[in-house]
C-alpha cells in the first residue's frame, strides 16, 4: 500500500491536488462518460474513438457479458439474452412496465424489482446497469491514468426514489463512489449555461430513449436555480420506434412474431425513424427468421401522423411546470433540446410553435448531459475552477404520509428546493394508543394507493393518553442528493423514532455484498476486506479534508492548544492508516470518529466565517435607511 505523506503542520501536502472525477450519463439507449481536463469538459471515447456506448448488454453462459456495440450488433440474433433499454426496468415491478408483452424478455416478478431471465441466470436491472457502468469506469481510468475518486451519475429528473436508489446501487456495484445523482435536464443546463454564459429563464426539453423530462431554471452568474421540473417517466424515443413497429405489423399483416423478429423489426423501426430526420421518405426492408422478405415505404407524413399523440403528450408536463413556476411562455429566454430523439423534425417544429422561439441546439444533444455532469463532478471533487458553480435543485415529486382513510397528507410539496426540512404534527386516534405506524409515500395523487410507497416505520412507547392528546411531530429531511430521512417524536415525552428512507425497492447492504461476492467461495473474507477498504477510504478522506481546512484557516480560527489537539488526532489516524493492519477495522473506525469529533468546534467556526464572508459583501438595507 502506498505510504501516506504527512505534511508539517501548516504545510498541507497537496492543497490543490487534482482529483479524478467523472460525469456519467447512464442513458436508456446510449451511455457516456466525460471529465474536465484543463478547465474544459470533454467526453471520453473508446479505443475506436467512439463517444457513445450503447446501453446494451449481452449475457452468455459461463462467460463475460458483452457490453455496447458488440452486444447491440447481436441483439437481433440473441434477443432473450441481450438486454436493451434496461433503464426502463430500474426500480420497477412487472406491473409498472408498459408493453412488457411486446418485449423479447422473460420477466420474473421479484420482491421490489423485476428480474430478467438470461443465459447467465436471473439478473436484476441493477446488475445489468452495473455492467454498463463498469465499462465506462474502465474507459475513464485507462484514459485518465488512475483510480477515480468519484462520479456524478445523471438520472431523469422525474425518477422517483426507487429508481434513484436503484441507480445508486448499480454504481456501488460497479465500484464507483457516487458524488451526486444529478438530474439530466439540470446537467444539460449547466453545460449549456456555462458554455454560453447565459442569464435568465431557460427551459430544458429532454426526450431520452425511455423518459421525458422538462425543467425550468433561472441562471444568474453561475447559480443554477431550478424553478420547476416535471415529466413522464414512461415516455421516450423508444415509443416512437414502437409506433412504427405497430404500423409495420399492421400493414404487413404479421400476426404473431417470435422474439428475434420482434427485435429485428424494432431495430429497423429505429433506423427508419433516424433516417427520416434527413430524408422525407425511407424504405424498411428485411428478412424475417422464417426466410420471408418484408418491405414497406414510410414517409415523414405517416410517421408524423403516427406519433403526433405522443408528441402532444410531452406538452402537458411542460404546461404543468410553467404553471408551477408561475411563468408565462413569453417569459422564457431560451429552450435547450436534449436527447437524440429531439432531432426529429416535427418535434422541433412543435417546440418552436409552443415556445414562440427556435430551440437552442448548438451543443450535441447526445453529449450535453454527460458534459454537464462532468462539470458538476469537478466542482464536487473540490478541483480548481469548480467554485463558480452553484446548483439549487428541487424534488420532482411530493413527499407525504398516509393519514386516515388511505389519504396522502403532503409534507414536502414537489418543486421544493433541496436541502429542505418540514415538520407536521399528528395525534393518536384511539384512547390509550401507545404505538403509531407511519407510511411514507411519494406522488401527487390524493389516494395513497395511487402513490409510490417508500417506507413504513413505527413509533413505539407513546404514553397512554386519551385519543387526540398526544402530539407527534413528524419531520421530513431531504438532503442535497434528494434522499429522504424521516423522524417522529412525541412532543410531551420526547419518545423518538427515526428512519433513513430506503425504499422497499432498494437493495440492502447485505444484498450488494452478496452480489459483489457471488461465486466467490470465501465470501466472508471478501466482505471484511471490502469493509476495511471502505473504512480506509473514509479515513483518508477525513485526513485530506482536515489537513486542507487546517492549512486554510486553522491559524486564524484556532488557539495554539486547539491547534495541537487536532494535530495529535491527525497523527494518530495517519499512523493507523500507514500500519494498514487488516485486523484493525474497528480501531480504524474508532480513530476516524475521534478525529471527526475533535474537529467539530473548528468546523463550526469555519461555517461562521463563511457566513460573515457572505454577509460582508452585501448592502444591508437596514443601514441605508
Amino acid at each position, binding site marked *: 500500500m502506498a505510504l501516506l505523506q504527512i505534511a508539517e503542520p501548516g504545510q498541507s501536502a497537496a492543497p490543490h491536488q487534482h482529483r479524478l472525477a467523472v460525469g456519467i450519463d447512464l442513458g436508456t439507449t446510449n451511455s457516456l462518460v466525460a471529465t474536465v481536463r484543463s478547465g474544459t469538459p470533454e467526453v471520453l471515447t473508446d479505443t475506436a474513438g467512439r463517444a457513445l456506448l450503447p446501453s446494451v448488454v449481452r449475457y452468455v453462459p459461463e462467460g463475460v457479458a458483452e457490453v455496447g456495440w458488440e452486444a447491440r450488433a447481436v441483439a437481433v440474433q440473441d434477443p432473450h439474452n441481450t438486454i436493451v433499454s434496461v433503464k426502463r426496468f430500474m426500480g420497477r415491478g412487472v406491473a409498472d412496465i408498459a408493453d412488457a408483452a411486446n418485449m423479447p424478455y422473460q420477466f420474473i416478478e421479484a420482491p421490489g424489482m423485476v428480474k430478467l431471465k438470461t443465459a447467465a441466470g436471473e439478473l436484476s436491472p441493477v446488475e445489468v446497469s452495473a455492467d454498463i457502468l463498469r465499462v465506462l469506469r474502465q474507459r475513464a481510468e485507462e484514459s485518465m491514468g488512475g483510480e477515480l475518486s468519484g462520479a456524478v451519475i445523471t438520472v431523469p429528473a422525474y425518477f422517483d426514489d426507487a429508481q434513484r436508489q436503484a441507480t445508486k446501487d448499480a454504481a456501488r456495484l460497479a465500484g464507483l463512489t457516487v458524488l451526486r445523482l444529478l438530474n439530466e435536464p439540470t446537467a444539460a443546463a449547466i453545460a449549456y449555461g456555462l458554455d454560453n454564459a447565459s442569464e435568465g429563464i431557460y427551459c430544458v426539453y429532454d426526450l431520452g430513449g425511455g423518459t421525458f423530462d422538462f425543467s425550468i431554471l433561472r441562471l444568474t452568474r453561475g447559480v443554477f436555480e431550478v424553478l420547476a421540473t416535471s415529466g413522464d417517466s414512461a415516455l421516450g424515443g423508444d415509443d416512437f420506434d414502437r409506433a412504427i413497429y405497430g404500423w409495420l405489423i399492421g400493414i404487413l399483416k404479421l400476426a404473431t412474431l417470435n422474439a428475434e423478429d420482434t427485435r429485428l423489426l424494432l431495430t429497423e423501426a429505429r433506423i427508419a425513424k433516424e433516417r427520416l430526420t434527413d430524408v422525407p421518405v425511407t424504405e424498411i426492408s428485411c428478412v424475417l427468421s422464417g426466410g420471408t422478405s418484408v418491405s414497406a415505404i414510410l414517409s415523414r407524413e405517416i410517421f408524423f401522423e403516427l406519433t403526433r399523440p405522443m408528441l402532444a403528450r410531452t406538452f*402537458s408536463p411542460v404546461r404543468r411546470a410553467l404553471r408551477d413556476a408561475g411563468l408565462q411562455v413569453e417569459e422564457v429566454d431560451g429552450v435547450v433540446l436534449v436527447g437524440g430523439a429531439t432531432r426529429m423534425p416535427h418535434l422541433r417544429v412543435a417546440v418552436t410553435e409552443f415556445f414562440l422561439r427556435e430551440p437552442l441546439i448548438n451543443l450535441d444533444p447526445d453529449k450535453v448531459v454527460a458534459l454537464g455532469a462532468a462539470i458538476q463532478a469537478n466542482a464536487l471533487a473540490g478541483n480548481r475552477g469548480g467554485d463558480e458553480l452553484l446548483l439549487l435543485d428541487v424534488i420532482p415529486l411530493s413527499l407525504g404520509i398516509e393519514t386516515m382513510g388511505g389519504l396522502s397528507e403532503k409534507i414536502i410539496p414537489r418543486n*421544493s428546493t433541496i436541502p429542505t426540512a418540514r415538520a407536521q404534527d399528528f395525534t393518536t386516534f384511539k384512547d390509550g394508543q401507545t404505538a403509531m405506524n407511519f407510511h411514507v409515500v411519494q406522488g401527487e395523487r390524493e389516494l395513497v394507493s395511487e402513490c409510490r410507497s417508500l417506507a413504513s416505520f413505527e413509533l413505539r412507547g407513546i404514553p397512554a393518553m386519551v385519543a387526540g392528546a398526544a402530539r407527534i411531530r413528524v419531520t421530513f429531511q431531504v438532503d442535497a442528493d434528494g434522499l429522504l430521512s424521516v423522524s417522529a417524536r412525541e412532543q410531551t415525552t420526547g419518545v423518538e423514532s427515526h428512519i433513513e428512507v430506503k425504499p422497499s425497492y432498494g437493495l440492502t447492504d447485505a444484498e450488494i455484498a452478496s452480489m459483489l461476492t457471488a461465486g466467490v467461495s470465501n465470501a466472508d473474507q471478501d466482505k471484511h476486506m471490502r469493509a476495511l477498504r471502505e473504512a480506509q477510504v473514509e479515513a483518508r478522506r477525513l485526513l*485530506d479534508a482536515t489537513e486542507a481546512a487546517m492549512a486554510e484557516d486553522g491559524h486564524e480560527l484556532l488557539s495554539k492548544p486547539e491547534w495541537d489537539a487536532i494535530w495529535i488526532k491527525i497523527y494518530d489516524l495517519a499512523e493507523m492508516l500507514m500500519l494498514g493492519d487488516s485486523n484493525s477495522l474497528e480501531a480504524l473506525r474508532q480513530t476516524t470518529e475521534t478525529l471527526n469529533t475533535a474537529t467539530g468546534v473548528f468546523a*463550526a467556526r469555519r461555517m461562521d466565517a463563511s457566513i460573515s464572508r457572505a454577509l460582508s459583501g452585501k448592502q444591508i438595507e*437596514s443601514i441605508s435607511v
Partner: protein
Amino acid sequence: MLTQNYFELFGLLPRFTIDLSTLEQSFRRLQSELHPDRHASGTDSERRMALQLSTTLNDGYRALRHPASRAQCLIGLAGKEDANAAVSPAFLMGQMEWREAIEEARAAGITDALEALSRRLRHRMSMHEKDLAAALDERGDFEAAAQRVNEFRFYEKLRVEIDDALDQLDN
C-alpha cells in the same frame, strides 16, 4: 450560527413590503458559501452543518418570498400568533362559489373557463397583498393581518385546485 429571524438573515427590514431582488441576491450569496456542494470535500461535521444551514436558508427564502408566509413571520416576530384569525361567514360563502365555479368548469372540460378563473384569482390575491401591506406596514393591525393570511391560504388552496383541474384536463 444563523439567526432564526429570516428578515435579519437576508439583510432586510422586518416589513411586509420588501425588495425581492435584495432577497434573491442575499439568498444566492449565502447559499454560495453554505450549500453542501461547497463543503463536499469537508469533514463530516462541516458537511452536517452545511446541510442544516442550507436547509434554513431554503426555508427562510421560501417563507419570505410568499406573501402569506412573510406576513406570518411578521406576526410571529411581533408575538401576535394568538391574534384572532377567523374568517367571516361571507368569505366562506365566497369560497363555496369559487369551488362551484371550478368544479363546473372542470366537469364541463372547459380549459378557457379555468384559465379565466385562474386570472381572476391572481388578481384577487394581488389585491389581498395590498391589504396585507396596509395592515402590517401602515396600521400595525395584526388582527386584520392574521385574518388576511388565513384568507390567503384559502386562495392558495383554490389555486392548487385550479392547477390540478387544468392538469387533469390536459392528460
